[in-house]
């Protein structure tokens, strides 16, 4: 038995290593100052997909990502680890999308891919932390969904068994296929890039990247069709422009506040009731409690 798996992945700024110039003066993220990485929980999802591929020969793993041209790197990163191919959704009209517009665009692309048994993605992305896109994609496609997945325990053509990691324990659930499963960071870490796959796929490029590249490996692309990475625009996936990007995003940012973490000096208190009362008053006054 083999399966067709789609992994939704996002390129995100590495918010784990935030320096002092991580935010611009206007309160938006300074993407140039932060390295772009594969969203960590999407890597956990990819690993679950690759494990199924190891178990069931003939299984294919296809990445789907939406982003600017450089997000093609996400597809390459997937190929380096054992994925079979991928699509980059890229179009100016996709820009500025909130979770609703994003899940709409992704669901349209998935409809275009057409054949699939399972859609995997990370629980949430580290730049937005909403955890909404996976469930919304499931809703739009009318599929069953399993969130907080830690391990895929079993699969057959009809059903998937998943272990979920919840706040107070674990839960084993079954879902009908096709299904959307969002994977938790506590799941197995993703395997490393494979030395041979890296050498095989490092020249893989989208049409746009090929136009911008300074080295000429034209002959290589001619002989090795797997090096062509697919780019899809709004029109390619048959999406309605109004529902994409900024115009398709009801979420509006009302206000952005800069919060600066500061380690303040310790304050020594006398071990008396008065000192403790004083501290209580201070904490209530500054809304800490």
């Amino acid at each position, binding site marked *: 038995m083999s399966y067709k798996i789609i992994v939704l992945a996002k390129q995100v700024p590495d918010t784990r290593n935030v320096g002092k110039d991580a935010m611009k003066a206007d309160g938006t993220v300074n993407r140039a100052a932060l390295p772009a990485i594969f969203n960590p929980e999407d890597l956990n999802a990819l690993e679950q997909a690759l494990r199924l591929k190891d178990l069931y020969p003939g299984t294919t793993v296809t990445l789907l990502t939406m982003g600017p041209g450089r997000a093609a790197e996400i597809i390459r990163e997937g190929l380096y680890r054992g994925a079979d191919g991928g699509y980059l959704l890229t179009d100016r009209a996709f820009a500025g999308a909130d979770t609703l517009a994003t899940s709409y665009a992704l669901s349209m692309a998935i409809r275009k891919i057409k054949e699939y048994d399972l859609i995997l993605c990370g629980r949430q992305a580290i730049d937005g932390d909403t955890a909404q896109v996976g469930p919304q994609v499931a809703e739009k496609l009318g599929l069953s969904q399993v969130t907080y997945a830690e391990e895929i325990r079993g699969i057959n053509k009809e059903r998937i068994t998943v272990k979920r990691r919840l706040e107070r324990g674990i839960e084993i659930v079954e879902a009908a296929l096709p299904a959307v499963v969002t994977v938790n960071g506590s799941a197995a870490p993703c395997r490393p890039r494979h030395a041979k796959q890296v050498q095989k796929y*490092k020249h893989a490029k989208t049409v746009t990247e090929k136009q911008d590249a300074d080295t000429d490996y034209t002959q290589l692309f001619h002989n090795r069709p797997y090096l062509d990475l697919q780019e899809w625009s709004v029109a390619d996936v048959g999406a309605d422009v109004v529902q994409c990007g900024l115009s398709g995003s009801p979420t509006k940012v009302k206000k952005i506040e800069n919060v600066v973490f500061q380690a303040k000096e310790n304050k020594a208190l006398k071990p008396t009731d008065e000192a403790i009362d004083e501290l209580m008053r201070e904490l209530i006054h500054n809304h800490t409690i």
Partner: protein
Amino acid sequence: MANYYLDTPGLKHHLHHPLMKRIVELKERNYADKETYDYAPVDFEDAMDSYEKVLEIVGEICDEIIAPNAEEVDHEGPTVSDGRVTYAAGTQVNLDVVRKAGLMGITMPRRYDGLNFPVVPYIMIADMVSRADAGFENLWGLQDCAETLYEFGNEDQRKKYIPRVCAGETMSMDLTEPDAGSDLQSVMLKATFSETDNCWYLNGVKRFITNGDADIHLVLARSEEGTRDGRGLSMFIYDKRNGGVTVRRIENKMGIKGSPTCELVYRNAKAELCGERKLGLIKYVMGLMNNARLGIMAQSVGLSEAAYREGFAYAMERKQFGKAIIEFPAVYEMVSLMRAKADASRSMLYETARFVDMYKAWDDVSKERKLEPEERQEMKKYSKLADAFTPMGKGMTSEYANQNAYDAIQIHGGSGFMKDYTCERLYRDARITNIYEGTTQLQVVAAIRHVITGTYLAQIREYEAIGYKPELEELKNRLMEMTAKYEEVVAHVTEYKDNEYLDFHARRLVEAAAHCIFGYLLLQDANRDEAFSRSARVYTAYGRAEVDKIHSYITTFDRKDLGFFKIV
């Protein structure tokens, strides 16, 4: 996140040495594999880019997995039960990840599923892995044995075993026995040929075998009954799948504790002869040892680097008398000398690796076609240089690894003596590097003939002839003075034609040559990249004083006093 490849600019610097173009062209036979293998490079730039990308994978794995596991692996160590070894949990994780990253069989040809990388990038991986966990390098680095299997095994054996190594099976080289350590001629493990079964059987005991429970073993055994010396020894391949070898015990070591050191019992273990009979020690083990020595050099460099980093970080962070201790001359001198020794060791490592690459590439070509006279000449030249640089480099860099580990603790003061800091593990791990694969004293025995025959001096002359930037002229003059003193002491010692007297001073002579060579290598580094000029200057200041000391010792030494050194 740090990356061991990207945070050590010296690696990229050495990878991009001008000689690499020749090495890669030879190794890739003008990029012929590109037609057959989808991961083969199409040209030189493509090959170099592939090396870098793979080195980045390793750099990431070292930082994120191997280094964080090192402490627990050191504490837990491997265990043995029912004759089989179980690695520490962290070691198993490490092995799993290097297998999944396809980092086994790095130098093996693609037709056996290898990556066909030259020795230089392979050794770079060893350098980084050692910095993360020197003990783990032993397990990973034993893939060297595949090199020996490739060079001396027959085609059936290559096809049978090398793809298994590339897929992640581990190896061991079973040489040492209770009564055969440095003196391998006394190996007694018995190999008998059974006419009925048409195969060899091994019986006996091996001791101190690193990763002795490996999947595939290369074994040195006595195949010629009645013989007592090296000419009665042959090399065998033992496949664990056939059974017959059990692990009796594992040693409780001072350092590199994650790497199991085993005592093995062979009971009618079925084995295959590798190569020709009687050449086991004289030819094959010598090849095996040279590969292994380069590996230990890499291990030493990794440890020197790790020790420097621990020492430097602590000296920056520790405040005494109102300032960071690195601001005190006594401390910053130690730190800068550690840096210089690590840089010098690394330059020596990659110079040697390039020599090995050049002769091995030609040697491999010679299996396909007859070499032209000038090609043969070039192979001989590099083979000789590799032969000269390997023992010198192994001896010197392993001593420097120990010195750096010692100084790292010294910088930590009392805290360094506690088990809380990494430097204590580095100190214990480094201690084996100047002992195994031949002690420093034995490296001197191998190196001294290149002092006598002038291999080192000739190479120093080549380094002298390179054009250097004007600002480095003064440094070059110092190195020329050092070289003149080296020549003087060599002349002084050899004049008497007294072998015992020569042996007595041998280490000093080899070290004097090494200081000149290390100095010149750093001078070339500084010539290509300004960032090395500090280490070039610091090392030369140190090396010059060392050469002066050696010069003074030898020229003022009274031969009659030699007797006083003989305690018995």
